[in-house]
């Protein structure tokens, strides 16, 4: 099923759909940071408390999708290089957009981003002190939960971290604006009359994802640099800034 040239595209598209769906849910979840400390902490706690098979099953599934997606991309690109050993002396592009031509580059940087992001906020080895952030805000009666809210605000105090997140989300935007419409082509579920609509839809989706993810580092950075004051000033205490 997946061994032929078309089969590899099916695999790219199917794993791509999973990742497209995941980024939306993840973005919607993150936006609860804007609703306040109790909301995001409670949400994160609820996710962490999912039954083991569901939590680790979904994590494993996502990991397998990313690996299959990246691996197939590498195979496709290597085969394509081999298919034209000698390129044209004059290289002209008539129709293909930049985001489609740079799928490999945006994907590779995204892969690095995914690894960093997991080490940063999930496994928390980049700044191990995030592990110690506990609070009763958003926690069930008489319990303490991990203070995701403070961790995120602290995390984006580092300008380079925020910039890297925003750049990565911009690349994700480019990756999706070609990728999401490409899915319909690769799986053959479109016709010429739908093409423009699908391409516009994919672009719109990609920008929603970009804005939805980037708004948090943008707001935190804006507040740190004294442009905006969105979050509770008390959370921008000296101790937070040091972290």
């Amino acid at each position, binding site marked *: 099923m997946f061994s032929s040239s078309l089969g590899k595209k099916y695999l790219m598209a199917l794993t791509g759909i999973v990742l497209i769906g995941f980024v939306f849910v993840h973005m919607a979840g993150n936006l609860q940071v804007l609703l306040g400390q109790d909301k995001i902490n409670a949400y994160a706690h609820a996710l962490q408390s999912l039954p083991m098979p569901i939590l680790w099953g979904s994590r494993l599934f996502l990991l397998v999708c990313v690996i299959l997606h990246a691996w197939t991309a590498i195979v496709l690109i290597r085969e394509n290089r081999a*298919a034209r050993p000698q390129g044209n002396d004059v290289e002209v592009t008539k129709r293909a957009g930049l985001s489609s031509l740079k799928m490999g580059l945006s994907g590779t940087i995204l892969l690095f981003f995914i690894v960093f992001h997991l080490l940063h906020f999930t496994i928390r080895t980049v700044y191990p002190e995030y592990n110690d952030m506990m609070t009763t805000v958003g926690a069930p009666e008489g319990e303490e939960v991990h203070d995701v809210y403070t961790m995120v605000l602290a995390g984006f105090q580092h300008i380079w971290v925020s910039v890297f997140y925003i750049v990565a989300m911009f690349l994700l935007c480019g990756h999706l604006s070609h990728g999401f419409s490409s899915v319909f*082509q690769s799986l053959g579920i479109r016709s010429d009359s739908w093409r423009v609509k699908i391409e516009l839809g994919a672009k719109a989706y990609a920008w929603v994802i970009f804005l939805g993810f980037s708004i948090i580092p943008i707001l935190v950075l804006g507040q740190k640099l004294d442009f905006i004051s969105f979050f509770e000033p008390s959370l921008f205490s000296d101790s937070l800034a040091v972290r």
Partner: protein
Amino acid sequence: MKLILRVWRQDGAEDEGRFETHQLDGVSEDSSFLEMLDQLNEQLLEEGTEPILFDHDCREGICGTCSLTINGLAHGPEDSTTTCQLHMRKFSDGETVTIEPFRARAFPIVRDLVVDRSAFDRITQAGGYITVRTGSAPDGNAIPVPKDDSDKAMDAAACIGCGACVASCKNASAMLFTSAKAGHLNLLPQGKAEKDKRVLAMVEEMDNSGFGNCRNYGECSAACPKDISLDYIAKLNRDHAAAKVRKIFT
């Protein structure tokens, strides 16, 4: 008009190849690109050097024999036009024109600008036909064909098999050609009976010939002298997936 021509010369598949630059004076704006090359070859013969080899046949845009990547564009700068139908008025006086062969591993260079496109023939032989008993022609309206389907099949059948799709594709993929040939027959009642077998065999042959994988750039359709739509590639993807799934259950 006067032209500086940078032309690819290569003695055979094993040769490295190189560009050769020639100046050509007195080119008529009304001549076709191939007539301009004829004129260059006469000049080369007079100088006592080997003429440049290039493919051509009908010179009226219907056979698919002419090729050439001109200034980086398969069949040159004019949309929906083969090299033989391209006129020199599309170029300016004194311009440097770079002429290269259709480059792809699956299209080995025979000599100079001539490439071997028999990989396309093999794809067609793998399934680009209908198995029928030959005999007298069937009655014209014996099999009803919906107008919409016959129009789409006709658009696909416009493919002349020139290989511009492969030459213009950054990945040297033959998807536009294969999808046009398969789509043309898959759309018609006469061809539907062997649809699955056809699609699987043609894609397998395409892969075996060393073409690249489609990445949905759309460069092929933009270069196609017959404007074959990316729709056929989507249809081939769909038909191939369906054939694979059906094969599991039979």
